[in-house]
């Protein structure tokens, strides 16, 4: 059964990975195994040793190559784990969900627990000119005293 070997240049979290096909090989399942973490063997191929990604058409799933073991008789054993993001990319992208955080769509007025601020603080003072009170300009001729006396 064929397995397509790739080099994946994207982070594991990326949906829509950048894949470069290395080769298409035939494989044999090592034993009964889960489609989530299959183990398989194949004929030795040098390109596989540096590859990190695979697609098994029969399973219709993409896999990370977790480990490659060189066996006797020029064979390789591959430990795979499923990449659900790439496998179900189309269905995932069709979802409409509540987006909690995003790099490009955001509301800056929402508080962000990740934000960090310096221990320093910026202080700004803004004056409000009124000119209603002017003790510096008072003189002994300015009626600025209120004398309250008992009415006669």
């Amino acid at each position: 059964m064929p397995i397509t070997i790739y080099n994946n240049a994207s982070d594991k979290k990326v949906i829509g990975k950048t894949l470069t096909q290395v080769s298409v090989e035939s494989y044999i399942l090592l034993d009964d195994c889960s489609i989530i973490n299959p183990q398989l063997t194949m004929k030795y191929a040098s390109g596989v040793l540096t590859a990190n990604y695979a697609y098994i058409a029969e399973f219709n799933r993409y896999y990370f190559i977790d480990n490659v073991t060189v066996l006797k008789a020029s064979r390789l054993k591959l430990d795979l784990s499923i990449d659900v993001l790439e496998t179900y990319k189309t269905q995932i992208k069709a979802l409409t969900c509540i987006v909690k955080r995003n790099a490009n769509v955001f509301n800056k007025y929402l508080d962000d627990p990740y934000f960090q601020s310096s221990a320093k603080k910026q202080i700004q003072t803004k004056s409000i000119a009124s000119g209603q009170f002017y003790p510096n300009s008072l003189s002994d001729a300015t009626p600025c005293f209120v004398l309250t006396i008992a009415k006669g």
Partner: protein
Amino acid sequence: MAYTVTYSDVKDKSNAKKYTAQNPSIASIIKQLNDFYSANGEIKLEGMTNQGLVCCKFSTGSSGGKAGLANIGTGIASEYYPTGYYANIEIGTSKLIAHVKVTQVKNITISTPFIYPLVNKTGANWNSNYPYFSDTVVYSLAAWRAAHDTDYIVTGIDFYDNTNDTSISVTNQRTKFTPSNLIYNYDVYQNMSFSSVSRIDGNMIGDGQGDALYPLYRNFIESIVNNGFQDSPSVCQVFINSLQTGACLYAGDAVNTSCGALANNGQCLKTFISLNALTFWLNSIGLPFTYSVTEATSKPTTGFTDFVPSGQPSDTTGGGSGTGNNMNDDIIQNSPSITPVSSFNKCYAMTQYELGILSTYLWTSTFLTDIKLLFNNPAEGIISCKMFPFSLTAHDSNHVGASEALKIGNVTTTAMGCPISSGYNAYFSMGSITIDEYYGSAMDYAPYTTIQIYLPYIGIKDLDPAEVMNRTISITYIVDISTGAIIAELWNGTQLLYTFEGRMGIDIPISSTNAAQFATSMALTALSGASGIIAGVAAENPLIVAGSVLSTAKSVAGNQFHINKAGINSPSAVLYMPQNPYIIFGRPIQSLASTFGATHGFPCNVSKQLSTLTGYTEIESPILNSISATKDELEQIKNLLETGVIFA
């Protein structure tokens, strides 16, 4: 091919600030102009946020060039236009998506296969004032065709309203948007409707140089094809710029059968451009666009942020049981016709000079004899004497009478005073201030930003940033001239948001008894809030009393040198303090890594189809029942979406 762009701010022509840049992108120019105008508070142009035009002229080599920012929003373009030839970049609006209609160039007929080499500076048509732009010259029609036969012509641009991007579908399509004349007052574009452009040549847009894409890349075109070339009626000139954009100027109907009947002597300009260059151009401008009418009308636009009006939350719902009535009732300032002034007592506005005369008179034997007929203590005839930091007559001359001899009881003294009537205006408008956001984010609000206000004769008070941000706060003082108490009111229009109490009238001791009362008053003022003393005395607990007295003593000592943020300052000391209010902003200094958004994303909280997103994304409790996968796989998908994935 390198090129230089010189552009200038022409808001103040005499002090125009000029910029020069080598090979700038359009976006960088917009940003620089934007930064400049933002910093100067004149015009705020935020990329795609506002609609408007940037006018700039590109020039090459040493020929120089000028530019200006023209007509952002509703400004008058001509006012900002220095003399010269200008190119324009239309910024558009962020709530629009453009459908750029293109047609591939095939078998263009050019009956005059003469192509003038622009680089020939000594040629007959060369004008040294014209930019020298390219050394890529096409000398023959065959060569020109070879280079451009697969290029495209933009045949029209339709704009569609994109304010409801997430719910766009085949049955719920975007509606077409027709630009209003607010987009541009310049005669070339006034009342222009992009959607009405039906042919690619002619005088459709203006200047005899019709092209639907004209507003977008006229800046480049005019860098390479100058007005003066239109005076050569028998040549077709093709020039190539660094973006591999061809500009061809035809002369006469014969050169292009599609020109039809043309104005301006049959001259027209057509521009040819490779699809890659066009895409580069549109991306550089930042205009959301598509070449597909299907996408323009019925598909969400990948990577395009929905237009959200400022301050309008989206995808937010209420509790469901509220009335939704947020109408304001105006709060009205009261104007009492009767006040305590001059009821049982009589108030006089006096000068310090007259007070001196009164002081002397009080100790004359005549006064003492007369006053004793009414009071046991002569000083009881004087209720109080207070000083205010303003002229009582100047503030409200209508309620301060003419100077008259002061009467204490039934004794007329030699001192003169102006009687104050009951309706004395106690209001003082202390000015207003508009409090703007600094960051334009949650950082402008509590707990990050603090806002305090210093009020003369009251002190420094805390304000809630959420209550005063983006509002104009007006301050009114109400002064009780009979007691010296004041109330400061902080208004937002007709909304009374805060009141603070204080004391402005400074007691003047008239006699030793009066001085003792003054001292008591001062002490009580300083001890305001020291209720522990009273409580301790009431409880006969000497420890509480002793502790309270000690702490209060420290507090009073401290208040001699520092602003008391909570209480009332010593009245006479505040004469030495600022007499105008001011706002104190305490802002955080945010530490934001440049890759923060790519690594963590920013808070979002909107519903979106995930195909419309790019970059780091976290999903809140995704529902995956539409995905046909095993239970373990679904669990993995859920965990990954919740903890963060990256959409390429």
